[in-house]
């Protein structure tokens, strides 16, 4: 991917694949906030990338890649809503959605990108840290429940969660797209 005078051009399939890997899941979860259906959201994002793929040779992104994908996914979602009449969308509601969606992607897409990076970063945690962190964040168990479940002290659970968070922050800090 080359960048000249703030213009981005995708020059190979490998570059496209990297963009796909980085943005696919965040975009699906972002769209799902509105469609409330993961399969539909997945279809919208696939369609977004297909359109991007179709014009990849001529595609020159003038803003940020994140902003381009956000706008493109948003427009595809509106098209999908009109086509499938999802959520009983009528024009007023479409306008409402469009109005509620900020033009700047930073405030809306970034959290999904961070969550996506957090998921990936979990793989780099120590097994014990990861296990306790997952029980806490994914299973929603309290520290006491985790302590009882793993037959360890509550303090040990707290330590493991703290270490996990600190590790995740360090991993994300190395990602230029998350913490600048």
């Amino acid at each position, binding site marked *: 991917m080359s960048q000249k005078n703030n213009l981005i051009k995708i020059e190979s399939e490998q570059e496209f694949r990297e963009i*796909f890997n980085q943005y696919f*899941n965040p975009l699906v979860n972002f769209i799902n906030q509105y469609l409330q259906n993961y399969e539909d959201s997945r279809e919208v994002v*696939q369609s977004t*990338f*297909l359109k991007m793929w*179709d014009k990849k040779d001529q595609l020159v992104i003038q803003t940020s890649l994140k902003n381009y994908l956000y706008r493109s996914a948003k427009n595809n979602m509106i098209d999908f809503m009109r086509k499938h009449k999802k959520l009983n969308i009528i024009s007023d509601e479409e306008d409402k959605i469009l109005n509620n969606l900020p033009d700047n992607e930073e405030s809306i897409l970034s*959290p999904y990108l961070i*969550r996506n990076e957090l998921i990936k970063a979990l793989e780099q945690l120590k097994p014990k840290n990861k296990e306790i962190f997952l029980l806490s964040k994914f299973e929603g168990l309290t520290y006491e429940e985790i302590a009882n479940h793993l037959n360890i002290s509550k303090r040990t659970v707290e330590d493991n969660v703290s270490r996990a968070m600190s590790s995740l922050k360090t991993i*994300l800090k190395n990602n230029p797209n998350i*913490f600048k």
Partner: protein
Amino acid sequence: MMLKENTLLRYLNKTASQKEVEEVENWIETSPENRKHFQEMLTVFYESNHLKTFKTYNLDEEWNKFKTSAKTSHKPIENVFSRRKIILFASAACLTLICAFFFLFQKETEILRQASDQQLVFTLPDQTIITLFPHSSASYDENFNELEIRKVVLNGKATFDVASNKAKPFLVEASLVTTEVVGTIFTVDSYKQDSSFVSVEEGQVAVKNNMEIDDVRILNEGNSVSFYNNSFGEISYPEVIVEEPVVKATPKPKKKKAAAPKPVQPKKEIITPAPTKPQPKAKKAEVLLSKYPVNDVLNFLDKQHPENKRFSKSKKAKVNKEDFVMLNLNEPIEKIIERLELKYNLSYDDEKCTNCIDLKKITKK
């Protein structure tokens, strides 16, 4: 000043003691680095609380699906587009062809009737009878009755016995003049390239110069007009018989002997102008056009030439005995016979009659 990670976690979990809260807040205020560290930890803490609802798809599988779609489902989209283009082009071509056929067909829907060496009598859909003279032709639209204007294009000469229909004017378009009528009998002669002649037997017609819209002549019963050198000639009016002021002719004129000068009793009806004030010209008693009982005329002709009784009896029988025929006695006798033939579809060989019938004598006292 170092801060234990557990203390920060309890602060974020809101389970920290008051002392720990003060400790953390003091630590944040100590340096920008501490504040930044806190902000980053806060982000990880907050976003990690949403991981439970963050769905992740296997990216290899999704990429394969994407690649498959890009290779297969997208090509058909282009194909569909091409197919649509082809269908559009085909539709446009078909439409053009249909339009072309329609216009060609429109031209072909014109019916052309041509008379060869003999006269041709035919009836239009509105029951107008047209008698085409030799080597003349007339054309009209196949949907003649459905059109607002009944129009016949004439090349040559024809007599028209127009079925009356005031709602639908009847036009005869010749090369130089167009004759418009409602219901009448008239003849348009446009044999010659540079002249036309229109004569009216019954009713009224308007003859228009094809080159000048405003140049119109109204012809009444018995009138005729010639058109030559791009202008109309004088309208020929029928002259009047002023025999008796009262117009009450016997329904059947008395039959005279064959040699009698008046075998046919003309109906003493003044045509134009009004009978009470005969024109000076009429005083000459020169009868140019008048109504004669058709039956008497036919019988007279038969009796005059018993050896040449060529009027078909069966056809004569169909002639309405109460009918009258307009005769212009200044016309050549063959024209009069021709008119009778045309009007009643009779056949009469006039070769031997031309010199022996003098209808002028009929009216002369």
